[in-house]
């Protein structure tokens, strides 16, 4: 395949003579690109978005060509400059959700594809993005999640009692999730524990207030654990023809959904199946 066929350099020759990167520079470039890719995936970005972000940063740093293979569990990245090339393989840590971080990294890559950048500057910018705090502090996030799950109880047809019960259960589950996350508990175990604690608490409140539909509160109190991001990203990956990524994320979503089921089963078992639909 020649250059024109790829729709590549044949169309738009660089206006200035390109300086080839040294072996050491290229090595550091791949390191930064790989790091950004890992950060994007761990913030919940889809494989294509991750690949695009990595490529723009790599090209902005002066590589001639990047060959990338991105999956939610590992990344293979090769950067080429002149006659040199470097390849790295990186494993990806546990997948989480942090929309603001993914947006900022993507924005950085767009700026870089326009104006370029230098290695130390990019390293520092990535560091700043990674260390920036959440949009809202924990003490607002926890009640916000509670209100969201309470609203879901209302959507399902609940009343004021179910709203309160679901909100209390969900807030407890969210607090527990943050604590367990800091203690580095794995995702499946964390989901089981939080589903159990949240639904038990919600059930307890409905018992205190003599609710007509305790099951609605129990369902809504575990909503915060629903793996919505892996599910939707899985669909995006599949429709981008990233089959490995799509199936991987779909399986992750299914595992987390089953983990919620296990937690709720434990609650039902403890409460003696008195929660009837």
């Amino acid at each position, binding site marked *: 395949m020649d250059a024109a066929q*790829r*729709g*590549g*350099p044949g169309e*738009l*020759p*660089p206006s200035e003579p*390109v300086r080839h990167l040294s072996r050491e520079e290229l090595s550091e470039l791949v390191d930064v690109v790989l790091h950004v890719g890992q950060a994007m995936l761990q913030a*919940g970005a889809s494989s294509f*978005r991750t*690949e695009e972000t990595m490529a*723009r940063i790599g*090209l902005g740093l002066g590589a001639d*060509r*990047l*060959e*990338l*293979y*991105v999956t939610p569990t590992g990344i293979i990245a090769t950067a080429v400059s002149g006659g040199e090339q470097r390849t790295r393989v990186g494993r990806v840590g546990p997948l989480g*959700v*942090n*929309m*603001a*971080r993914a*947006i900022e990294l993507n924005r950085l890559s767009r700026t870089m*594809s326009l104006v370029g950048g230098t290695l130390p500057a990019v390293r520092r910018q990535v560091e700043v993005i990674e260390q920036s705090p*959440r*949009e*809202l502090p924990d003490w607002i*996030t926890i009640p*916000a*999640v*509670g*209100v*969201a*799950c*309470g*609203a*879901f109880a*209302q*959507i*399902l047809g609940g009343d004021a009692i179910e709203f309160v019960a679901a909100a209390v259960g969900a807030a407890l589950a969210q607090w527990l999730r943050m604590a367990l996350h800091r203690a580095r508990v794995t995702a499946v175990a964390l989901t089981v524990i939080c589903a159990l604690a949240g639904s038990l608490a919600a059930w307890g409140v409905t018992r205190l207030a003599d609710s007509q539909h305790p*099951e609605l509160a129990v369902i809504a109190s575990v*909503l*915060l654990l*629903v793996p*919505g*991001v892996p*599910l*939707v*990203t899985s*669909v995006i990956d599949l429709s981008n*023809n990233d089959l490995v990524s799509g199936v991987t994320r779909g399986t992750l979503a299914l595992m987390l959904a089953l983990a919620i*089921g296990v937690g*709720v*089963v434990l609650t*039902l078992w403890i409460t003696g*199946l008195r929660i*009837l*639909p």
Partner: protein
Amino acid sequence: MSGVDLLEQGVWGFLATAGFGVLFNVPLAMLPVCGFTGAMGHMWRQALLAGGAHPVAATFVGALIVGLLGYSQARFFHVPRLIFTVTGIIPMVPGVPAFETVVFFMRDDIPTGLESAVLTGLLVSAISAGLVAARLLLTLGDTASPHHVRGLWQRGGPDRK
């Protein structure tokens, strides 16, 4: 369903969606937009359900609305549409059938449990199908270059339009 009921449902949809926006660390300025998306999808779904539509069809339309709104808002605000679609589908999560599946299985009523499990699967598929349908409707025009090799990015390549 009266207009007031529908509006009330819209408010709950807004709260549920915006709350999940906080959980997913969506940029602060986008939270009301997320809430609006979720409320619209949910209100369409509720209106169709009240009109006698099948839950799967109503969920499909709701997700389609979320997808269409998410796409246009993403263009307008220059952010990935994922932040609107992921939060917008939250009010449509099939919580009740999923819960029924668990309860019926525990009661050893496997056939009824399977029925709920299939309905849960169908509702989740309807959400996915609605989002994909919105994406296809809006991106029919811009197909990727047939010469663009996936995973290969080069200087002055297709990325530089």
